[in-house]
Protein backbone atom coordinates (compact mmCIF):
# COMPACT_ATOMS: atom_id res chain seq x y z
CA UNK A 1 0.00 0.00 0.00
CA UNK A 2 2.84 2.41 0.72
CA UNK A 3 4.01 2.41 -2.90
CA UNK A 4 0.54 3.50 -3.98
CA UNK A 5 0.61 6.30 -1.43
CA UNK A 6 4.02 7.43 -2.69
CA UNK A 7 2.69 7.44 -6.26
CA UNK A 8 -0.38 9.41 -5.20
CA UNK A 9 1.88 11.96 -3.50
CA UNK A 10 3.79 12.19 -6.78
CA UNK A 11 0.48 12.79 -8.60
CA UNK A 12 -0.41 15.61 -6.19
CA UNK A 13 3.06 17.16 -6.54
CA UNK A 14 2.90 17.01 -10.36
CA UNK A 15 -0.59 18.52 -10.35
CA UNK A 16 0.57 21.45 -8.19
CA UNK A 17 3.53 21.97 -10.55
CA UNK A 18 1.14 21.87 -13.53
CA UNK A 19 -0.92 24.67 -12.02
CA UNK A 20 1.97 26.78 -10.79
CA UNK A 21 4.48 26.44 -13.65
CA UNK A 22 5.38 29.60 -15.54
CA UNK A 23 5.34 28.32 -19.12
CA UNK A 24 2.83 26.00 -20.73
CA UNK A 25 5.22 23.26 -21.87
CA UNK A 26 6.34 22.63 -18.27
CA UNK A 27 2.77 22.27 -17.09
CA UNK A 28 1.95 19.91 -19.99
CA UNK A 29 4.89 17.71 -19.00
CA UNK A 30 3.77 17.82 -15.37
CA UNK A 31 0.27 16.70 -16.40
CA UNK A 32 1.83 13.80 -18.32
CA UNK A 33 3.90 12.83 -15.27
CA UNK A 34 0.73 12.73 -13.17
CA UNK A 35 -0.96 10.52 -15.77
CA UNK A 36 1.93 8.07 -15.92
CA UNK A 37 1.97 7.83 -12.13
CA UNK A 38 -1.75 6.99 -12.20
CA UNK A 39 -1.02 4.29 -14.79
CA UNK A 40 1.59 2.82 -12.43
CA UNK A 41 -1.02 2.86 -9.65
CA UNK A 42 -3.36 0.77 -11.81
CA UNK A 43 -0.49 -1.61 -12.56
CA UNK A 44 0.11 -2.08 -8.83
CA UNK A 45 -3.63 -2.63 -8.25
CA UNK A 46 -3.44 -5.55 -10.77
CA UNK A 47 -5.37 -3.90 -13.60
CA UNK A 48 -2.91 -4.16 -16.51
CA UNK A 49 -5.56 -3.57 -19.16
CA UNK A 50 -6.50 -0.20 -17.70
CA UNK A 51 -2.83 0.66 -17.22
CA UNK A 52 -2.09 -0.03 -20.91
CA UNK A 53 -5.04 2.12 -22.02
CA UNK A 54 -4.08 4.99 -19.72
CA UNK A 55 -0.44 4.89 -20.86
CA UNK A 56 -1.42 5.06 -24.52
CA UNK A 57 -3.98 7.79 -24.02
CA UNK A 58 -1.45 9.79 -21.99
CA UNK A 59 1.05 9.52 -24.86
CA UNK A 60 -1.63 10.71 -27.30
CA UNK A 61 -2.64 13.62 -25.05
CA UNK A 62 1.00 14.60 -24.43
CA UNK A 63 1.69 14.70 -28.18
CA UNK A 64 -1.42 16.78 -28.87
CA UNK A 65 -0.76 19.21 -25.99
CA UNK A 66 2.88 19.76 -26.95
CA UNK A 67 1.86 20.24 -30.58
CA UNK A 68 -0.68 22.82 -29.43
CA UNK A 69 1.50 24.70 -26.95
CA UNK A 70 5.13 24.63 -28.11
CA UNK A 71 4.76 27.66 -30.35
CA UNK A 72 2.65 29.85 -28.14
CA UNK A 73 5.18 30.36 -25.39
CA UNK A 74 2.87 32.59 -23.40
CA UNK A 75 3.39 32.62 -19.65
CA UNK A 76 0.22 32.37 -17.66
CA UNK A 77 -0.53 35.72 -16.10
CA UNK A 78 -0.99 35.15 -12.39
CA UNK A 79 -1.49 38.14 -10.16
CA UNK A 80 -2.39 37.91 -6.51
CA UNK A 81 -6.06 38.63 -5.82
CA UNK A 82 -7.26 38.73 -2.23
CA UNK A 83 -10.96 38.04 -2.88
CA UNK A 84 -10.43 35.00 -5.13
CA UNK A 85 -7.81 33.59 -2.78
CA UNK A 86 -10.17 33.80 0.19
CA UNK A 87 -12.99 32.29 -1.88
CA UNK A 88 -10.82 29.37 -2.98
CA UNK A 89 -9.69 28.80 0.61
CA UNK A 90 -13.27 28.78 1.94
CA UNK A 91 -14.48 26.37 -0.71
CA UNK A 92 -11.47 24.09 -0.22
CA UNK A 93 -12.15 23.92 3.52
CA UNK A 94 -15.84 23.24 2.88
CA UNK A 95 -14.92 20.48 0.41
CA UNK A 96 -12.51 18.90 2.85
CA UNK A 97 -15.16 18.96 5.59
CA UNK A 98 -17.76 17.26 3.40
CA UNK A 99 -15.23 14.83 1.93
CA UNK A 100 -14.00 13.70 5.33
CA UNK A 101 -17.59 12.85 6.28
CA UNK A 102 -18.14 11.04 2.94
CA UNK A 103 -14.93 9.02 3.03
CA UNK A 104 -15.93 7.53 6.38
CA UNK A 105 -19.02 6.02 4.76
CA UNK A 106 -17.18 4.37 1.86
CA UNK A 107 -17.03 0.56 1.79
CA UNK A 108 -13.73 -1.13 2.52
CA UNK A 109 -11.23 -1.36 -0.32
CA UNK A 110 -11.77 -4.54 -2.31
CA UNK A 111 -15.31 -5.14 -1.02
CA UNK A 112 -17.59 -3.16 -3.36
CA UNK A 113 -21.28 -2.55 -2.76
CA UNK A 114 -22.29 -3.44 -6.33
CA UNK A 115 -22.90 -7.16 -6.32
CA UNK A 116 -23.60 -7.73 -10.02
CA UNK A 117 -19.93 -7.23 -10.93
CA UNK A 118 -19.11 -10.38 -8.99
CA UNK A 119 -21.44 -12.32 -11.28
CA UNK A 120 -19.54 -10.97 -14.31
CA UNK A 121 -16.25 -12.12 -12.83
CA UNK A 122 -17.61 -15.55 -11.94
CA UNK A 123 -19.56 -16.32 -15.11
CA UNK A 124 -17.43 -14.45 -17.65
CA UNK A 125 -15.23 -17.37 -18.60
CA UNK A 126 -18.09 -19.79 -18.99
CA UNK A 127 -20.72 -17.60 -20.64
CA UNK A 128 -18.67 -15.33 -22.86
CA UNK A 129 -15.82 -17.76 -23.37
CA UNK A 130 -12.96 -15.32 -22.92
CA UNK A 131 -10.39 -15.68 -20.14
CA UNK A 132 -10.00 -11.90 -20.36
CA UNK A 133 -12.67 -10.62 -17.99
CA UNK A 134 -12.30 -7.05 -19.25
CA UNK A 135 -13.06 -8.09 -22.82
CA UNK A 136 -15.94 -10.28 -21.64
CA UNK A 137 -17.43 -7.32 -19.76
CA UNK A 138 -16.78 -4.63 -22.37
CA UNK A 139 -17.90 -6.63 -25.40
CA UNK A 140 -20.22 -9.21 -23.89
CA UNK A 141 -22.16 -8.08 -20.82
CA UNK A 142 -21.85 -4.33 -21.39
CA UNK A 143 -21.74 -4.14 -25.18
CA UNK A 144 -24.28 -1.30 -25.16
CA UNK A 145 -21.77 0.89 -23.33
CA UNK A 146 -19.06 0.07 -25.85
CA UNK A 147 -21.40 0.84 -28.74
CA UNK A 148 -22.28 4.21 -27.21
CA UNK A 149 -18.64 4.99 -26.52
CA UNK A 150 -17.37 4.32 -30.01
CA UNK A 151 -20.34 6.18 -31.49
CA UNK A 152 -19.39 9.23 -29.40
CA UNK A 153 -15.76 8.96 -30.54
CA UNK A 154 -16.87 8.69 -34.19
CA UNK A 155 -19.10 11.76 -33.82
CA UNK A 156 -16.23 13.73 -32.25
CA UNK A 157 -14.01 12.84 -35.22
CA UNK A 158 -16.75 13.89 -37.67
CA UNK A 159 -17.27 17.18 -35.82
CA UNK A 160 -13.57 18.09 -35.78
CA UNK A 161 -13.30 17.17 -39.46
CA UNK A 162 -16.27 19.37 -40.35
CA UNK A 163 -14.98 22.38 -38.38
CA UNK A 164 -11.47 22.26 -39.84
CA UNK A 165 -12.81 21.69 -43.35
CA UNK A 166 -15.02 24.77 -43.24
CA UNK A 167 -12.27 27.00 -41.87
CA UNK A 168 -10.02 25.99 -44.75
CA UNK A 169 -12.45 27.06 -47.43
CA UNK A 170 -13.43 30.47 -46.17
Amino acid sequence: MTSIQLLLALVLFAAIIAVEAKDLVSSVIAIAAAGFAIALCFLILKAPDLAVVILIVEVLALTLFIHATHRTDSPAATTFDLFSSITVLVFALLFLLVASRAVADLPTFGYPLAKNAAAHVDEGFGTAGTPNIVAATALGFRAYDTLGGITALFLVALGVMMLTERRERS
Partner: protein
Amino acid sequence: MNGMSLPARTFTRIIIVPVLAFGFSLFLHGHISYSAGFAGGVIIALGLMLVMLAFGKNELVKRLAPPRAAAAAGIFLAFFLLLGMLGIVYGGSFLSGFLGTGRHYELFSSGVILFSNIALCLVVAGSLLALLFSLASYRK
Protein backbone atom coordinates in the same frame (compact mmCIF):
# COMPACT_ATOMS: atom_id res chain seq x y z
CA MET B 1 6.17 20.85 -41.93
CA ASN B 2 8.56 18.62 -43.82
CA GLY B 3 9.30 15.98 -41.25
CA MET B 4 12.11 15.50 -38.79
CA SER B 5 15.84 14.90 -39.02
CA LEU B 6 17.55 11.84 -40.49
CA PRO B 7 18.02 9.91 -37.20
CA ALA B 8 14.35 10.36 -36.36
CA ARG B 9 13.34 9.08 -39.80
CA THR B 10 15.62 6.05 -39.54
CA PHE B 11 14.35 5.25 -36.06
CA THR B 12 10.78 5.55 -37.31
CA ARG B 13 11.55 3.13 -40.14
CA ILE B 14 12.87 0.61 -37.63
CA ILE B 15 10.16 1.03 -34.99
CA ILE B 16 7.01 1.30 -37.12
CA VAL B 17 6.69 -2.40 -37.99
CA PRO B 18 6.83 -3.66 -34.37
CA VAL B 19 4.42 -0.91 -33.29
CA LEU B 20 1.84 -1.81 -35.94
CA ALA B 21 2.34 -5.53 -35.30
CA PHE B 22 1.71 -4.98 -31.59
CA GLY B 23 -1.48 -3.07 -32.37
CA PHE B 24 -2.70 -5.79 -34.75
CA SER B 25 -1.89 -8.52 -32.23
CA LEU B 26 -3.87 -6.64 -29.60
CA PHE B 27 -7.00 -6.50 -31.68
CA LEU B 28 -6.79 -9.95 -33.22
CA HIS B 29 -5.65 -11.81 -30.11
CA GLY B 30 -6.44 -9.47 -27.23
CA HIS B 31 -9.74 -11.02 -26.23
CA ILE B 32 -7.99 -14.20 -25.16
CA SER B 33 -4.80 -12.67 -23.81
CA TYR B 34 -4.83 -9.37 -21.97
CA SER B 35 -6.33 -6.33 -23.63
CA ALA B 36 -9.46 -5.29 -25.45
CA GLY B 37 -9.58 -3.56 -28.80
CA PHE B 38 -9.54 0.06 -27.66
CA ALA B 39 -5.83 -0.01 -26.86
CA GLY B 40 -5.05 -1.69 -30.19
CA GLY B 41 -6.88 1.00 -32.13
CA VAL B 42 -5.10 3.80 -30.30
CA ILE B 43 -1.71 2.09 -30.86
CA ILE B 44 -2.34 1.82 -34.62
CA ALA B 45 -3.41 5.46 -34.81
CA LEU B 46 -0.37 6.56 -32.81
CA GLY B 47 1.98 4.56 -35.06
CA LEU B 48 0.59 6.20 -38.16
CA MET B 49 0.84 9.57 -36.42
CA LEU B 50 4.52 8.83 -35.75
CA VAL B 51 4.99 8.24 -39.49
CA MET B 52 3.21 11.52 -40.17
CA LEU B 53 5.40 13.44 -37.73
CA ALA B 54 8.64 11.92 -38.98
CA PHE B 55 8.13 12.05 -42.74
CA GLY B 56 5.95 15.14 -43.04
CA LYS B 57 2.23 15.22 -43.36
CA ASN B 58 1.93 15.67 -47.11
CA GLU B 59 2.35 12.12 -48.38
CA LEU B 60 0.48 10.26 -45.67
CA VAL B 61 -2.44 12.70 -45.48
CA LYS B 62 -2.75 12.59 -49.27
CA ARG B 63 -3.03 8.81 -49.23
CA LEU B 64 -5.13 8.47 -46.10
CA ALA B 65 -7.24 11.61 -46.13
CA PRO B 66 -9.54 12.27 -43.14
CA PRO B 67 -12.75 11.53 -45.11
CA ARG B 68 -11.40 8.10 -46.05
CA ALA B 69 -10.43 7.26 -42.46
CA ALA B 70 -13.81 8.45 -41.20
CA ALA B 71 -15.56 6.40 -43.90
CA ALA B 72 -13.67 3.29 -42.77
CA ALA B 73 -14.63 4.00 -39.16
CA GLY B 74 -18.29 4.40 -40.17
CA ILE B 75 -18.23 1.13 -42.10
CA PHE B 76 -16.91 -0.76 -39.09
CA LEU B 77 -19.40 0.98 -36.80
CA ALA B 78 -22.14 -0.30 -39.12
CA PHE B 79 -20.52 -3.75 -38.88
CA PHE B 80 -20.77 -3.58 -35.08
CA LEU B 81 -24.47 -2.65 -35.40
CA LEU B 82 -24.94 -5.53 -37.86
CA LEU B 83 -23.50 -7.91 -35.28
CA GLY B 84 -26.09 -6.56 -32.83
CA MET B 85 -28.90 -7.12 -35.34
CA LEU B 86 -27.70 -10.69 -35.98
CA GLY B 87 -27.86 -11.12 -32.23
CA ILE B 88 -31.56 -10.20 -32.38
CA VAL B 89 -32.20 -12.72 -35.16
CA TYR B 90 -30.21 -15.69 -33.82
CA GLY B 91 -29.68 -15.05 -30.12
CA GLY B 92 -32.86 -13.37 -28.99
CA SER B 93 -31.65 -9.93 -27.93
CA PHE B 94 -29.57 -7.06 -29.28
CA LEU B 95 -25.80 -7.68 -29.19
CA SER B 96 -26.15 -11.11 -27.63
CA GLY B 97 -23.53 -13.73 -28.29
CA PHE B 98 -25.03 -16.06 -30.89
CA LEU B 99 -22.00 -17.98 -32.13
CA GLY B 100 -21.42 -20.27 -29.22
CA THR B 101 -18.13 -20.78 -27.45
CA GLY B 102 -15.70 -23.40 -28.59
CA ARG B 103 -12.72 -24.75 -26.70
CA HIS B 104 -11.22 -22.31 -24.26
CA TYR B 105 -8.06 -20.36 -25.12
CA GLU B 106 -8.44 -20.89 -28.86
CA LEU B 107 -8.76 -18.03 -31.32
CA PHE B 108 -12.42 -18.67 -32.19
CA SER B 109 -13.33 -19.63 -28.66
CA SER B 110 -15.45 -16.67 -27.70
CA GLY B 111 -18.08 -16.39 -30.39
CA VAL B 112 -19.03 -12.90 -31.41
CA ILE B 113 -16.51 -11.13 -29.17
CA LEU B 114 -13.67 -11.64 -31.66
CA PHE B 115 -15.54 -9.86 -34.44
CA SER B 116 -16.87 -7.07 -32.25
CA ASN B 117 -13.33 -6.62 -30.91
CA ILE B 118 -12.01 -6.15 -34.47
CA ALA B 119 -14.82 -3.72 -35.28
CA LEU B 120 -14.21 -1.75 -32.06
CA CYS B 121 -10.49 -1.47 -32.74
CA LEU B 122 -10.92 -0.29 -36.32
CA VAL B 123 -13.60 2.25 -35.38
CA VAL B 124 -11.25 3.70 -32.77
CA ALA B 125 -8.28 3.72 -35.16
CA GLY B 126 -10.22 5.33 -38.01
CA SER B 127 -11.84 7.97 -35.81
CA LEU B 128 -8.56 8.95 -34.15
CA LEU B 129 -6.76 9.07 -37.51
CA ALA B 130 -9.47 11.29 -39.00
CA LEU B 131 -9.31 13.55 -35.94
CA LEU B 132 -5.50 13.80 -35.85
CA PHE B 133 -5.02 14.25 -39.59
CA SER B 134 -7.69 16.91 -39.88
CA LEU B 135 -6.12 18.76 -36.92
CA ALA B 136 -2.67 18.42 -38.52
CA SER B 137 -3.74 19.76 -41.91
CA TYR B 138 -5.70 22.60 -40.36
CA ARG B 139 -3.09 25.34 -40.76
CA LYS B 140 -1.74 25.44 -44.29
